């Protein structure tokens, strides 16, 4: 693998995109965007959802072929017009999407070298193929047997396999779209280190991420997009202690076009008496008999209270929430949910909804929405009784109610008959929230409600949560972002290995305390 090191000593940028304009029917997605990426640098592309980041990267990688946009794309100073993805890959540009493009049943080698297998007379030489794959895996720091199927790897490791695959194509510019959104902290760190390593090896990266912290940690330059235009490009330098020269608020200001005084709306919590109590909730793994995933969880939530649930990946937070929500995951062993001291029947999801419990799932695309249906139908899906009489739907009432909810959630759309697939991530999440608000919940469980969502939309979602709580609803907020829990919650529970390991009032909570509780393994409560 020596080609990647032979970077031409061109003084100019590796990539120069200038004055890119791209229109979709009814929407101008890009309105004169310019972007320059220097060879061997990490370049962050920031912007709210819908600012045009993904569209720009699709123009670059040939998904939107030349001719469907205006403006110029130059590589090493030479104008290029990619007719498709293959042409862009040949020029050394590879994109790694949020949804990984690996074939789970095939081995690591087969995935990494798909289309580049080492062959002799057209027959695959497996020894050489594995050896070559191993070499690429070492470059991305993944010490795994290349004969393992990809499905046996964690999401983080799969991401590394994707990068190895890109390296096999002699990539010079790697585009990563939200690479850490599904990774835990350790995996994220490893990935970010890898980006720095790749920089040393002469591979430039364009990093799209909503996590400001990680962006500031690794990027050399930051380009900010807003409403389809380039706002500015900032150069990030680090002092001897690694502190970046550009502060996060500066970037946020550029992205939203205004000052965000606070990232979390102020809350005047007037917490009432305890309304919901969970007692001794215990859940087993759905297929592995006897494997406990939630072990005697106890918690309570007061009226109008926002309660956080902190935990590392695998702590059992989602499993707990989903089992609580009508046993929709795992095998229920024992435990009770009480509202105002009375036990609630929770046989299935319909029971849970009827009891006033709502669960906004972590994976909104596959669990929260029917993507090919419109906003209206998605909004009313969980509470059809509200728009029907004796099983017959009133279409006018449905439209009116969906519009009202859409406005309340501030969904940006062409109307309630827009298909949700075509909405941005933040707006999709608002539709999911609206769908659950429409059930008039008394206990709202939010599972990673702001994952993969831009700063502006995050703030709006926080506002909605606050307003809900102010109206007296109980909120259980599950999040992997500790600042979010600290900023939003009146109280935070920490979970580790299926057990609640502690409870901290919001005022006393800090990241260190929570982290200590979240990693308290093997002890009894």
């Amino acid at each position, binding site marked *: 693998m020596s080609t990647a090191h032979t970077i031409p000593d061109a003084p100019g940028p590796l990539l120069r995109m200038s004055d890119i304009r791209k229109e*979709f*029917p009814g929407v101008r997605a890009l309105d004169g965007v310019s972007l320059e990426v220097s060879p061997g640098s990490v370049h962050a592309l920031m912007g709210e959802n819908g600012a045009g980041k993904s569209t720009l990267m*699709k123009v670059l990688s040939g*998904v*939107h072929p030349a001719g469907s946009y205006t403006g110029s794309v130059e590589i090493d100073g030479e104008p290029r017009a990619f007719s498709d*993805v*293959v042409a862009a*890959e*040949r020029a050394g540009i590879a994109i790694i*999407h949020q*949804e990984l*493009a*690996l*074939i789970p049943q095939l081995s690591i080698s087969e995935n990494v070298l*798909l*289309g*580049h297998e080492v062959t002799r007379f057209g027959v695959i030489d497996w020894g050489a193929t594995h050896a070559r794959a191993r070499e690429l895996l070492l470059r991305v720091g993944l010490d795994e047997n290349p004969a393992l199927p990809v499905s046996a790897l964690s999401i983080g490791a799969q991401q590394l396999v994707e990068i190895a695959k890109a390296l096999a194509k*002699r990539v010079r510019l790697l585009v990563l779209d939200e690479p850490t959104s599904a990774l835990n902290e350790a995996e994220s760190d490893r990935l970010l280190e890898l980006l720095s390593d790749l920089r040393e090896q002469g591979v430039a990266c364009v990093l799209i991420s909503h996590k400001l912290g990680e962006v500031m940690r690794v990027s050399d330059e930051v380009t900010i997009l807003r409403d389809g235009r380039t706002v500015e490009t900032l150069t990030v330098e680090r002092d001897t202690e690694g502190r970046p020269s550009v502060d996060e608020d500066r970037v946020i200001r550029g992205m939203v076009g205004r000052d965000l005084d606070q990232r979390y709306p102020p809350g005047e919590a007037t917490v009432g008496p305890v309304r919901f109590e969970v007692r001794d909730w215990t859940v087993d793994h759905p297929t592995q008999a006897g494997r406990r995933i939630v072990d005697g969880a106890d918690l309570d939530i007061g009226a109008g209270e926002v309660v956080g649930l902190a935990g590392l990946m695998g702590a059992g937070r989602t499993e707990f929430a989903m089992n609580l*929500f*009508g046993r*929709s995951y795992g095998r229920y062993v024992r435990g009770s949910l009480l509202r105002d001291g009375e036990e609630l029947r929770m046989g*299935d*999801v*319909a029971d*849970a*909804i009827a009891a006033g419990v709502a669960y906004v799932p972590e994976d909104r695309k*596959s*669990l*929260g*929405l*029917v*993507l*090919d*249906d*419109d906003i209206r*139908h998605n909004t009313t*899906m*969980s509470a*059809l*009784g509200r728009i*029907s009489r004796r*099983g*017959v*739907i009133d*279409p*006018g*009432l449905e*439209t*009116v109610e969906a519009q009202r909810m859409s406005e309340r959630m*501030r969904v*940006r*759309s*062409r*109307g309630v*008959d*827009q*298909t949700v*697939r*075509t909405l941005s991530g933040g707006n999709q999440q608002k539709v999911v929230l609206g*769908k659950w608000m429409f059930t008039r919940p008394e206990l709202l469980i939010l599972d990673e409600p702001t994952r993969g969502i831009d700063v502006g939309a995050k703030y709006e979602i926080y506002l909605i949560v606050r307003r809900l709580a102010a109206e007296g609803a109980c909120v259980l907020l599950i999040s992997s972002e500790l600042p979010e829990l600290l900023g939003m919650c009146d109280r935070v529970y920490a979970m580790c290995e299926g057990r609640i390991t502690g409870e901290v009032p919001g005022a006393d909570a800090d990241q260190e305390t929570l982290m200590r509780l979240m990693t308290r393994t093997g002890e009894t409560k």
Partner: protein
Amino acid sequence: MNRPTSSLPRLREMLRGRTRQYGMAIALVAIIILFQILTGGLLLTPLNVTNLIMQNSYILILAIGMMLVIITGHIDLSVGSVVAFTGAMAAIMLNSWGLPTVVVVPAALLLGALIGAWQGFWIAYVGVPAFIVTLAGMLVFRGATLAVLGGESIAPLPQSLRVIASGFLPGRSDGPHLPTLLLGLAGAAVIVWIQWRSRARSRARELPVAPVAVTATGSVLVVAAIMAFTYVVAEHNGLPLVGVLLIALIVGYAFVMRSTTMGRRVYAVGGSERAAALSGIRTKQTTFWVFVNMGVLSALAGLVFTGRLNAATPGAGTMFELDAIAAAFIGGASAAGGVGSVVGAVIGALVMGVLNNGMSLIGLGVDWQQLIKGLVLLLAVAFDIYNKRRVGGSAPIMPALRSRRRPPRDP
């Protein structure tokens, strides 16, 4: 909030999801006109229109059930064999056991429901793919048909069963059939009333409505189409009984799928089973009942087919499943589930029916008929996919392409 400023984009948005259905309706009209010309006016004679309804009645019945199955994201390959088996059992009950038709018809429908429940159980609760379960069903019930019939046909059948498939509304006299005309008039009036009422209701809620001229044109077209159809049918023997049955089924199922929570659940399960389950929809139950429904409709088609043939034969219903599946896909279903409509299935079945009938009239052999029908199915679905990609953007399709396309080898 981006509010649309003009109504034109709104109208386009409203039409967007239905391009396939409107496209196929237009294609159906074009095919009718084409064969009307090619056959020198034979296609739309009163006798032939009546024949068209009767010949295609069982495929239409099956297509409605199949549409529901496909919307749920499944498939049913067994319907042809179930048609044969229920038909055979009905014939045995009538001729060998001597049961009266009023008992045999519900018994056959119940048998269909049990068959549907059997298949629905494996699909919904055990999780065996519908393709496998119904492939097995196709073999099982064909075998069962052969076994109960002992490889021979049962014929003739009592008049009381035959009348279901070949009878007409009473009231025959000289000149056009009056009850048929009156029925058509009443139907047209009801549809126009519904159109204007729903418009008025939308207005009362301050929702955007089509201009008066558009709704009025729609009403005129509906009345003209219904009256033209009833007049043609009235010229012959009047509306066949099976036509009455079909109209009831189409109206009933279209209503259930469009306007009831039950129908909405079926769409939700097909659109995303996991999202539906987390929304409180009992997805397994929904799937189960969709297959029970398919079983009942298969039995109904079996009764109509057996009555029309005046015999129960071991080979009855062969390839019916493919006609029904083709009708659903031509009519706008998506193999991924969650998309499709009852009216679409009817249009799809009529496209196939008119093609069959028209090609027979101009003397094209079965060889050419099959070939042309196959191409029509392919083109209809290809047109739909092309259309979706054009309006919906390419985003969802690309990741799949990315992994499949192989970049060129390095030297």
